[in-house]
C-alpha cells in the first residue's frame, strides 16, 4: 500500500520540482534579490541569491512589535526559498512558493512589574500563492514564526489591479489592498491600500494602513 502511494507521489514530486523559477520572493538564476517591508511594527529586510532557477538562499533581519508596544522582537535568520509549482498561461502566471528560515530570536516582553528578555531559536516555514495577469494581482501567504512558547504566525492576503497596461520598459502603477495579521502581536487585521510602481528594474509600494501608519515595501534584483 505504501509503495503504491510512493509510485503516485514520486512522479508528482518530480513534476513539482522540475519547474524553473523567477518572480515572487526571488530573482532569476544567479541573481540577488533585496527586499524590504517596513512599517512601525514590522520591519523586515532580506537579501537572497538564486543558486538555481528555482532555489534561493539568503539572510533576513526582522523587527516585530506589538500594537500596544508591550512586546518587541528581533529575528536574524538564514532563509531558503523554493518555487514549488508554476503555471504559465498566454496572459497569466500563477506560482506556489515555499519560504522558510531558521534563526535567532531576541525578545522583550513588558509585563506588569517586570520586563522579561529572552533568546530563542525560531523557525519560519511558510507558503505563498500568487496569480497575476498584466492587469490583476492576487497573493495569499501564511508563514509560521515559531519558537518555544512563541507563536507569531503571519497571514496576508493581497489583491489589486493596474490602472493600465504598460510597455516592458515603462513604469506601471497598481492599486493593491493588503490584509494581514501577526499572531500574538496584534489583535486586529491590518488593512493597507498601497500604490505599487513596477518596472523592469524595481518594485516599490507605499501606503497608509488602517491605524494611519505608513507602510513601504521594495524589491530590487541585481
Amino acid at each position, binding site marked *: 500500500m505504501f509503495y503504491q502511494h510512493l509510485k503516485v507521489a514520486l512522479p508528482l514530486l518530480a513534476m513539482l520540482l522540475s519547474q*524553473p523559477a523567477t*518572480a515572487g520572493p526571488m530573482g532569476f538564476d544567479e541573481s540577488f534579490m533585496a527586499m524590504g517591508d517596513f512599517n512601525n511594527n514590522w520591519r523586515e529586510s532580506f537579501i537572497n541569491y538564486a543558486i538555481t532557477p528555482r532555489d534561493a538562499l539568503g539572510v533576513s533581519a526582522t523587527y516585530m512589535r506589538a500594537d500596544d508596544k508591550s512586546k518587541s522582537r528581533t529575528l536574524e535568520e538564514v532563509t531558503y526559498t523554493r518555487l514549488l509549482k508554476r503555471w504559465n*498561461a498566454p*496572459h497569466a502566471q500563477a506560482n506556489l512558493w515555499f519560504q522558510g528560515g531558521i534563526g535567532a530570536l531576541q525578545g522583550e516582553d513588558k509585563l506588569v512589574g517586570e520586563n522579561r528578555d529572552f533568546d530563542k531559536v525560531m523557525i519560519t516555514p511558510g507558503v505563498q500563492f500568487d496569480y497575476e495577469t498584466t492587469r490583476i494581482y492576487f497573493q495569499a501567504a501564511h508563514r509560521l514564526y515559531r519558537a518555544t512558547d512563541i507563536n507569531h504566525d503571519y497571514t496576508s492576503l493581497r489583491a489589486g489591479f493596474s490602472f493600465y497596461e504598460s510597455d516592458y520598459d*515603462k513604469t506601471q502603477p497598481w492599486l493593491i489592498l493588503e490584509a494581514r495579521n501577526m499572531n500574538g502581536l496584534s489583535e486586529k487585521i491590518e488593512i493597507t491600500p498601497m500604490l505599487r510602481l513596477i518596472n523592469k528594474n524595481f518594485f516599490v509600494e507605499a501606503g497608509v494602513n488602517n491605524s494611519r501608519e505608513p507602510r513601504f515595501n521594495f524589491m530590487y534584483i541585481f
Partner: protein
Amino acid sequence: MKKLLLTTIVAATLFSQAAFATQTIKANVNGMVCAFCAQGIEKKMRALTQTKDVYVNLKQRIVAVELKDGQTLSNDKVKAIIKDAGYDVTSIEVSEHPVAHIKAELESKAEAKK
C-alpha cells in the same frame, strides 16, 4: 578580365551580404505578465556574446533576440534560457528583420487596434 573582376566583386558583395544578413530569433512566450519578473529573460539574452539587441513585448508575448553579424544562436538555446527564466516558449522562428523593425511593426499593430 574586367568582366571576371567585376563578377568577382559583385559575387563577393552579395555573398558577404547574405552571410551577414540580419538574423533575429523571435519567440512567443507564455507567462510574461510582469516587467520586473521578465527582466531575467532580457539580462540572460544580453549576456550572450552573440546578442546585438533584445526586445521584450509583454502584451504581444514576444521575445526577440537580434544577433550580431556573422553570429549564430540555436533556437534550442533561446528556448532553454527562457525556460530557465521561468516561462514557456510556445513557438519560435527566425526573422531577417532587426529588432527595431519588429518593434515598430508590433507597436503599429497595437496602435491600429486602438
